[in-house]
């Protein structure tokens, strides 16, 4: 039940988002501060609806506006690095987010923005090579956002062909967070990847990026005790509902009864008929004579 309401709220929010975006595209530098309430969900930053209306320039503008935004929570920036097959990792883009501190000491990220660096000529060459060889395109993020030095990176890879299924490159990040730690990143195409994969280099060398921050959810235990009391009441109610029709309840008695009645009726009808039409007719004479004999015997008793 809870998930559906969240989903409803989310869908409302997306709708709002689309409307706002459509509204703001004309005024490129207008702040989108109304989005502040997405903090409430603690879930995501700039997740966009699936068919993105625009490519990334929109996010870069948004990032700048975010920087000029609130000053209560600190801002945080971390780099996305990528590698082509076996090559070394090199910077590929920047994530910016607001670090929100909770009264209980926990920290979460909100308002995630991502801007990708433009692909250089060598990057393009490399990417083409990956697509031809059906090799892996790898990305990585620091595993701790506050203390990025000396920490491990979380890595993710995807077959390059999966990203290049349309004209431009599509990518989708789901960053699994625990406080300020990045546990893992799910990286891949935003939808499905067809198999067998086809080699199709992109015509437009830009990324359509979708990002999503994900925090753990808690286990909610269905409280049985509290509802047990209700259950007792419910049971009382439950006794009433099976108010089935008379026919539904007693059909098994009614059908044989009906049959018996019908049988008796046909017999009763037969009797006078036989008495009346005992003479040979168009039907088989033997059958009639047979039928005629039995009542005759009975009458003799």
């Amino acid at each position, binding site marked *: 039940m809870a998930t559906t309401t969240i989903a409803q709220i989310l869908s409302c929010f997306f709708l709002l988002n689309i409307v706002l975006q459509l509204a703001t595209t004309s005024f490129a530098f207008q702040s989108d501060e109304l989005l502040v309430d997405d903090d409430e969900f603690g879930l995501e930053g700039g997740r966009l609806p699936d068919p993105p209306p625009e490519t990334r320039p929109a996010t870069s503008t948004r990032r700048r506006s975010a920087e000029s935004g609130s000053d209560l929570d600190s801002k945080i920036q971390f780099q996305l690095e990528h590698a082509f097959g076996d090559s070394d990792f090199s910077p590929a883009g920047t994530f910016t987010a607001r670090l929100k501190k909770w009264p209980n000491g926990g920290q979460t990220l909100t308002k995630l923005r991502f801007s990708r660096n433009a692909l250089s000529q060598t990057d393009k060459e490399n990417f083409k090579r990956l697509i031809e060889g059906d090799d892996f395109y790898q990305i990585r993020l620091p595993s701790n956002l506050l203390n990025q030095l000396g920490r491990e990176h979380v890595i993710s890879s995807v077959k390059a062909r999966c990203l290049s299924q349309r004209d431009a490159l599509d990518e989708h990040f789901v960053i699994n967070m625990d406080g300020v730690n990045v546990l893992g990143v*799910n990286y891949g195409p935003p939808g499905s990847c067809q198999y067998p994969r086809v080699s199709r280099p992109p015509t437009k060398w830009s990324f359509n990026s979708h990002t999503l921050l994900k925090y753990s959810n808690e286990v909610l235990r269905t409280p049985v005790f509290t509802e047990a009391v209700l259950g007792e009441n419910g049971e009382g109610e439950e006794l009433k509902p099976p108010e089935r029709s008379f026919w539904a309840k007693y059909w098994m008695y009614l059908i044989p009864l009906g049959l018996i009645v019908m049988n008796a009726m046909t017999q009763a009808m037969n009797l006078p008929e036989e008495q009346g039409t005992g003479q040979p007719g168009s039907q088989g004479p033997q059958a009639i004579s047979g039928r005629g004999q039995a009542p005759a015997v009975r009458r003799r008793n």
Partner: protein
Amino acid sequence: MNMAIRVYLLLFIVLSYSYTAFSLYEDQVGLMDWHQQYIGKVKHAVFHTHKAARKRVVVSTEENVISSLDLRHGDIFWRHVLAPTDVIDQIDIALGKYVITLSSGGSILRAWNLPDGQMVWESTLLGPNASKPLLLVPANFKVDRENVMFIYGNGFIHAISSIDGEFIWKKELASEGINIQQLIYTDGSDTISAVGFVGTHRFGAYILDVKSGELLKYKSMEFTDGFSGDLSLVTDDTAVAIDSIGTSLVTIQFHDGLISFHQTLLSHLIQDFRRAAVISPSNIPGAFILETDNSVTLIKVISRGELKVVEELGHATAVSDALFLPGGQQAFALVQHRDGKILLTVKLDSDDGTSNLLEETIHLDNQRGKVQKVFINTYVRVDRSNGFRVLIVMEDDSLFLLQQGEIVWSREDGLASIVDVKPVVLPVEKDGVSVAKVENNLFEWLKGHLLKLKGTLMIATTPDDVAAIQKMRLLSSGKSKMTRDRNGFRKLLIVLTRAGKLFALHTGDGRIVWSRLLRTLRKSETCQSPRGISLHQWQDPHHHALDQNPSVLIVGRCGDSLDSAGLLSIVDAYTGEERNHMEPVHSIVHIIPLSFTDSLEQRLHLLLDANRRAHLYPRTAEALDIFQRESGNIYWYSAETEEGTLRGHSVHKNCVLEEADNFCFDSRDLWSIVFPSESEKIAATATRSLNEVVHTQAKVTEDQEVMYKYVSKNLLFLATVAPKDVGPIGSVTPDESYLIAYLIDTVTGRILHRVTHHGSVGPVHAVFSENWVVYHYFNLRAHRYEMSVIEIYDQARAENKDVLKLVLGTHNLTSPITAFSRPEVSTKSQSYFFAHSLKTMAVTLTAKGITSKQVLLGTIGDQVLALDKRFLDPRRTVNPTQAEKEEGIIPLTDSLSIIPQSYVTHTLKVEGLRGIVTVPAKLESTTLVFVYGTDLFFTRLAPSRTYDSLTEDFSYALLLITIGALVIAIFITWVWSEKKELQEKWR
């Protein structure tokens, strides 16, 4: 007509009785299950033979079992399995009626009643520092008319009453930093001595008053060359040790507080002495046994610490402790191997040398290895001379009692330490090998059927009848035949034990079909401490089932560390012959059985080494060809619990090594997940069984909706806990404890689901099957164990209900799925309280996956409980609707109730339970369950009852009789009705 109805009713009742026998009756025990009790490799043995009606030997074993065995037959009189942490250090018999055990590094002393094994008393001996535990039970020493024994443990010497375990006195001896090696008490003296080393260069001796524990004297003396190894006591005032460089023997004499050393060069004593001499721990007064790498020598201490070689005992020998004979002499037993036979010598040790009292040759089968330990016991023969019996422990952990040159009994106690199990199908029944037997004569046949009828009608009351029926059923079921059966109940279980022995057990009756001590897993020059890790199905012929035998791959390792060299061996599963073996190869960290087989139906295996390289087996060009074709779709993961990372890998390219190896591949990291070390620690992982079959991918709910199961072989369940929780119980409070459950795709490293249980701690046990995972942990807030279930459904296919698409074939149900697509999953979960603490968990497997599943729980009480998956349904609600009830949803309860009948092991216990293996039978409704620990247990389970077959004991005779009776009844009633009709006509 009334009569006829009565007859029918009676028949109906009889028939219905014969069909409702779903649960187990007393006489059905043992029909499809078996239970075997073992004790493990014997460490110590104490005989108890004089003036006892039942002669017995009390043993303690490496499986932490203390047991009393019947000396006549080797049966277990009683047995106790102590906790794995409570390791038995010493055993002895006190007062002729109590078995005394010292365990947990000299911390716990227990007395068990010898006849029945009841615990009489227990004392806890605490102390500040761990030390070598010592137990000394003087034969007849009394303080205030109480029998006393001395225990040294945790730095204290204790005098304890044998009757009730009360402390008489205790004294700390570790204050000087002494490492006490021996306690010495001479019968009748007033003092007890404790001797040992202070550091490595000093010998120290305490002399205490035996009645009060008062310290009378402490002497110590420096020895410049230093000591190495243990101190070995020769007489009450002489001990020997080896010096620190290992070149000479030091005789230490300590008489009345005076200490003197005497050094003898080993090269003087032994001809071609090179290195590494060890004093064997045998206790022979006046002498000791020195083992070097090429000889075993008996050396005697003569006056003033001089040493004299008495006898060269040859190679590969085990020597027993000395045994005092009634005449004041002493004897000890010696076992040697000669030409595949065992030569047992009992030597009489007297002042003027040794003489052989007894020499016997015993033939043992050659799959036993070398003799490891010998225990000797004496008895009085018919002619009043001394007879001897010895108990020997072999390299394969088996136990033998030898007497008069014969094996009196033997026990296969290696089976108490099973490492891995692999089921293998039996050979197909060939023509001409008809096993159908014709009954001997008519009378026997009639008697048999009468008994059967009695059994079916449950009128067999006398125990003889019951036993006869049971025996007959066993015979008629043919369950111990060596061929495949239609239902797939008969199989071979190949088990690998810790001693490196392979056994084939028949599932019908649990007998050993063959056994083999693997050459590869025996100690050798190149491999000092080999041990087996796992078994894998190497070859499973289906096309050539008639002319080829299946085989198993045994993987081992030299040493305990992951980077030690690996061992491989391939063994024929029907004969036990070693087909092929590979000497120490690269290290083996993990074995991945691939889903490809070559033309010989050998399964391809990928072996991962410590350097993250992957090695392909079998090493044939064909296998390489298959592998290279498929290598793009091979992924694996590794979890590093210490660092808290999970990594995904794939095959990259051939290794760059000094010598080219086409079968070696480098791996590369594809993804990684880093669990923050300050907040999470990996507690458990679970994956689906590789051979699990899922029958249906969709689940239809009560409102005619279809839910698609997210069925992926690549899902991993992983649980992490708070790092503090790894400590002992109570190291974490409910507020700072949590358990996080993950579902991770191991190809792409996507975290599909992550959920936190606050206030919960490990240990976590989990089992993964189809699209659900069930895990067990402790809820600190509720002070109870809890079990949770997560079911994962595929949302991407949820819309896929278009019938038109399905008809036209444009739906994506049959199109290949790639893990690189973004999955859209939804999960359902629920938690339930559970009463038991668990040791292990498993799930039933059936041939086609149609039958509903049961979760098998190995409880802390060493039993196996079968819990229907229905109870662990996340869709249970408090008030299920009528439609939900029809679907089989049980009303939600707070905790899972345990139905006593659902114990698979019924009244039996599988002591020291370690693992549960489920094997699908060919019959869909049935699954075979093998439970191992110190004991073994096997049974057959039908989670949804045997809906697809009549039970094995179904009485066809009764069915025929019933039909016959019905025909007769029809005839009789027909006659009656005819008569009646006639009468009515004549009235």
